[in-house]
């Protein structure tokens, strides 16, 4: 049984269609990365799954529960780690956890709090108010709060957005531990590296629908080939090179001050200049080619 099944889900906000016929299934025990640019419909999808948005049409099933009718039962079995820090800042670390243990009807609140304090490595800060914690500690606490009832399924909505690299790495370690325990994870992100490191499977979303899906290596092989040639040159020369590469059937994307000729191993002689930097194709190449957006 899939942990999440979405079929033809549409969600409109007035004239804007945020989710446009989304089909998505998340098998049990995997981490699926929902990778897409801002405005792709990732957060709306998360809200649909937590019953905070109601689809205009389509079918949604979470852990065997039909949404929105059985949303409350589904929410009892899943954990949510939001994009924004919404901890109670004046309240102690342990009280923040205890409140959510009660909301999730956990029988032994004290044991659940202790387990989460260990998970977040905050046992010695349990009596401190949240606003006395560092940014990294707060994010670990936020993650632990979403796991206070040991959910079967966890929704991570942009779990490391806006964080500095050190805190991001800390969280990736925690999410990695969660994965290793077999918890099903649906993680929305617009960070390529995050998706590449954590996700078993990636669904690239744009304009409210999945435009490609697969394991990172398969997506790269399918859409970007084996190699990418990056060419640094004055704008006029880049424009000429781009035109020639595209005329020969290759795909080209901007890459900061350079252009990236994707699948350059298939290029005919003379298309890729000798001064090009040849590197392995990446998920970033796939993301930019598919969505037309610059990667972060």
């Amino acid at each position: 049984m899939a942990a999440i099944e979405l079929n033809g889900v549409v969600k409109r906000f007035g004239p804007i269609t945020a989710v446009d016929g989304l089909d998505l299934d998340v098998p049990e025990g995997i981490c699926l990365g929902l990778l897409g640019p801002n405005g792709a419909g990732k957060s709306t999808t998360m809200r649909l799954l937590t019953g905070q948005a109601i689809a205009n049409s389509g079918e949604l099933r979470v852990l065997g529960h039909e949404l929105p009718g059985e949303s409350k039962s589904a929410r009892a079995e899943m954990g949510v780690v939001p994009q924004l820090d919404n901890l109670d800042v004046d309240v102690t670390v342990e009280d923040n956890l205890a409140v959510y243990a009660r909301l999730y009807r956990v029988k032994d609140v004290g044991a659940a709090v202790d387990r989460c304090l260990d998970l977040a490595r905050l046992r010695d800060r349990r009596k401190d108010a949240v606003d006395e914690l560092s940014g990294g500690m707060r994010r670990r606490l936020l993650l632990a709060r979403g796991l206070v009832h040991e959910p079967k399924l966890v929704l991570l909505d942009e779990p490391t957005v806006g964080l500095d690299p050190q805190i991001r790495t800390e969280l990736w370690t925690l999410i990695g531990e969660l994965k290793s325990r077999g918890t099903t994870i649906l993680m929305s992100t617009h960070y390529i590296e995050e998706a590449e490191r954590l996700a078993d499977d990636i669904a690239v979303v744009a304009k409210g629908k999945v435009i490609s899906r697969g394991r990172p290596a398969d997506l790269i092989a399918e859409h970007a080939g084996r190699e990418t040639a990056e060419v640094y040159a004055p704008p006029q020369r880049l424009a000429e090179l781009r035109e020639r590469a595209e005329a020969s059937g290759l795909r080209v994307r901007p890459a900061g001050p350079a252009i990236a000729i994707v699948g350059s191993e298939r290029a005919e002689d003379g298309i890729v200049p000798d001064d090009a930097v040849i590197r392995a194709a990446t998920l970033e190449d796939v993301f930019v080619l598919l969505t037309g957006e610059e990667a972060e």
Partner: protein
Amino acid sequence: MSAETQATPREMRRLEPAAIAGVMSREVANFRTYWKGTTFSSLLEPLVYLLAFGLGLGATLVDEVEGVPYIQFVGTGMVATAVIFSSALPAMFGTFVKHRFQNTYEAILAAPVDVEELVTAEMLWIALRSGIYGCFPLLVTFAFGLDPAWGMLLVPFFCFVTALGFAGFGVAMAATVAKIDQFNYVTALCITPLFLVAGTFFPISGLPEGVQLVAQVNPLHQLVELVRGGAFGYELVDLARFAFLVAVALVTWRIAISRMSKRLID
């Protein structure tokens, strides 16, 4: 995984006590961080009003009203003032801040809690607090010669029911306004007039007939009369007054749930 720390999969019902208790436990945890300031101001405010109106006005212009020493007339009326200010205002501002600025409701609604339970818990918590704070003016008035009476034991309950109504009103307003400064309109157009025509500082019998009619549908006025009934003797009409307060609480409860559902669920 431990069965004791896992959520128990089961069929969920409406208005689950566990969900309501969970939301209220969050309020209690927060209240523990700010109760001193709130309690201090709840005690000081009626004292200041009683000194200003009861002693100031009572000593110079008004000796007694309807056979009651003016300071005791004001002291019993101040219960309603304490109730509206400890229920409607926290419901308006607290709800708005938790929804718009702190994203608290987004986190709570991601748990197995629905809007009906969330609103019910918020209203109950505010009403419980207000039921206690509402009694402070009465306690202060004891120091100014008001004799304790058995009927006063019902006052916390009257305050609780009235506060439920105002909490529902406040939550509904918080779900309706677009910006926090729009609460100025609510305060100026609703709260201040209700406060002034409650019969706290002067009997409403001296007001024009039209205003007296408005006062009759003012829950604060009904509370003032019930509190004075507790202090100086109940009448049969007080049953109708209490029924009216219960009806107001029920109506504002449903309106608050409806407004918050529209605000929180897209």
